[in-house]
């Protein structure tokens, strides 16, 4: 028997969206509220089938907008429900206001984002500009490499978000079309194993206006007020609390990732970052999401030729696992950070900003350059990745960085 079968798992072919829906079906979710948008639509469609076939015990709210979808999840979570939503691109942008409200209200909503470009011009294909703009919204962000990880991450997400030490919403990114619409074999756990793993929501105690310590939820017996007007006196303190929860999150993400590995046999690095042939690497690329799969192939080719190439995949972009990043890149000489979104007028893409900043004190002599790629679903070929590693070799050889920020896969 294989390890998979031992754990009672089975392999089924799922596209990324179906993998999300399947995981949500198993997690005893109370309220799902969502609105269709390509490339996320399959999630709501699939979940609707589960609801209409009586396969889930979930209130499914087909809202009139993403703004309302997230609002519904937020207030349902405030009542004590486990909640889920999914969106992409314009839908996430429409939710923008409520993303901040959700984290500020400490509502542990789980959301899948099938990453897609933002208009204009309108484009339905993959890039990370939709979720990258939300990096400061107080949501945990996890990006998956393949459909297996999509499935696994959604299950872990409920545990992370609802953890009493965290209580923050979480976004699981899956690359639009590359994952959302691509069939892959996914190993799924038995329903009861997942159910046990996610268990039921627990509620920390808060002091209310009656001077009582009460569970943090809207309960008529133990009333609380959530979402007041909070001015100069205390707003800052509440934001500091949110940052504290973020700082506590990495340990909990790792712990839950490890617990999950025990029931599934699957690990993604330490849950925060995944290193690939990085131990003795001189050249490294850094990326998020499905691109990592292609990069790994290129790394193998280079290694076969004796080039010391490696990859660092950031799985949790928020909170940014700074120490893990520094540690993983300690001996690397040149780094290419790959950004699938553009920070117009900025100094490189958002991932670049953060990585270079993280390395500023620890690895000051490492060359760190940036490649903006794949906007609007533009393919990132092995050839282009190979070229990036060649650039890095040249940088090490000459000790000079010709261009700090470049566009790759773009016609002049």
């Amino acid at each position: 028997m294989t390890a998979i079968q031992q754990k009672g798992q089975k392999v089924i072919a799922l596209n990324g969206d179906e993998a999300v829906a399947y995981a949500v079906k198993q997690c005893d979710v109370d309220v799902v509220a969502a609105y269709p948008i390509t490339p996320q639509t399959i999630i709501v469609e699939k979940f609707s089938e589960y609801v209409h076939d009586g396969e889930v015990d979930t209130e499914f709210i087909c809202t009139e907008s993403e703004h309302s979808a997230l609002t519904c999840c937020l207030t349902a979570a405030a009542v004590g429900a486990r909640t889920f939503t999914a969106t992409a691109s314009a839908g996430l942008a429409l939710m923008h206001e409520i993303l901040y409200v959700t984290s500020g209200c400490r509502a542990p909503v789980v959301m899948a984002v099938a990453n897609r470009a933002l208009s204009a011009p309108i484009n339905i294909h993959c890039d990370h500009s939709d979720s990258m703009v939300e990096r400061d919204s107080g949501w945990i962000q996890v990006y998956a490499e393949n459909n297996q990880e999509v499935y696994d991450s959604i299950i872990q997400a409920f545990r992370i978000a609802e953890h009493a030490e965290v209580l923050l919403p979480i976004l699981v990114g899956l690359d639009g079309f590359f994952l959302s619409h691509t069939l892959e074999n996914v190993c799924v756990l038995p329903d009861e194993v997942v159910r046990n793993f996610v268990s039921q929501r627990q509620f920390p105690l808060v002091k209310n206006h009656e001077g009582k310590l009460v569970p943090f939820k809207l309960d008529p017996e133990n009333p609380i007020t959530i979402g007041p007007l909070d001015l100069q006196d205390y707003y800052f303190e509440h934001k500091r609390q949110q940052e504290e929860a973020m700082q506590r999150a990495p340990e909990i993400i790792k712990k839950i990732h490890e617990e999950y590995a025990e029931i599934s046999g699957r690990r993604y690095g330490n849950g925060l970052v995944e290193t690939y042939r990085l131990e003795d690497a001189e050249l490294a690329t850094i990326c998020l999401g499905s691109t990592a799969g292609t990069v790994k192939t290129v790394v193998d080719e280079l290694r076969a030729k004796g080039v010391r190439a490696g990859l660092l995949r950031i799985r949790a972009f928020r909170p940014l696992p700074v120490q893990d990043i520094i540690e993983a890149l300690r001996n690397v000489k040149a780094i290419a950070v790959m950004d699938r979104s553009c920070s117009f007028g900025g100094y490189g893409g958002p991932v670049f900003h953060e990585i270079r900043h993280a390395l500023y004190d620890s690895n000051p002599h490492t060359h760190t350059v940036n490649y903006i790629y794949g906007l609007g679903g533009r393919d990132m070929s092995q050839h282009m990745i190979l070229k990036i590693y060649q650039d890095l070799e040249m940088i090490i050889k000459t000790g000079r960085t010709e261009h700090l920020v470049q566009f790759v896969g773009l016609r002049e």
Partner: protein
Amino acid sequence: MASEWKFTAKEIAERPDLFMSGHRACAGCAPATVHRLVLKATRGPTIATNATGCMEVTSTIYPFTAWKIPWIHTAFENAAANASGIEAALKILRKKGRLEYEHVDVIAFGGDGGTFDIGIQALSGAVERGHDFLYVLYDNEAYMNTGIQRSGGTPLGAWTTTSPAGRKIPGKPQLKKPIADIMVAHEMPYVATASPAFWIDLIKKVRRGLEVEGPAFLHVIAPCPRGWRSDPSKSIEISRIAVETCIFPLWEAIDGEYNLSAPSKLMALRPERKKTVKEYLKMQGRFRHLFKPEFEHLTGKIQETVDRRWQKLLKRCNMP
């Protein structure tokens, strides 16, 4: 519909205030009275939510809260979505045996801005989906929280800071949106209008709105002395005259069937008691400019509009 709730004034007086004293609404704020009265009419465990606006702001200045019952605010345009999420959660948690209450009522409060304008999409969606909740529109006819700007609920000719009484354009050039009729067009089970002056009628309607299964909508006129430039002691009187002039008639539509409520029925049966709109307008500084000779024709236009809408309503109510 459930049996009619009978109550005396003293019974209502003995009920605790679930909207507590110490809130920071201006002196004479009728929306505050409306919130108090609505909560006095609740029948059991209740969760409330507000759209951003004066009542949300003045009732929850951190770390204080005027809400005895569980309450949440999230944003301006989504009070009905707040209610949708709350209701859905209650329903499923009850089904799964994780809620100890037989039933919990859900009330969403929104101002005119949060209802006629920015919140109409969420409201329409929530009603179409049929969530079981009561939406209370406290209508002070402008965006008061941000300093008196016009809304889709601001009446013709009214001064606001974005519809100033200019030399050329005297106040708001457009009519008030017939929001309650728009809600009736949703074929929802219960829609009604109310005025705090007619508090018995208001309380009964709140109770009916809660008892009905599915969404209920209550449109309450709520004078704001600060924004209406009116005497704070006159807030209740203005809300009475609004009914007596038929500017704000009281009615309910149960499953789409319109019926005049007693205070307005009186106006239908005894038209001679109907007051002219001028009596209403003159009590409020926001209409002062309409009494200048060059703009006097506008009061005639306002009267015409009120009469036209009143006739339309009488027809809907099968009144002669």
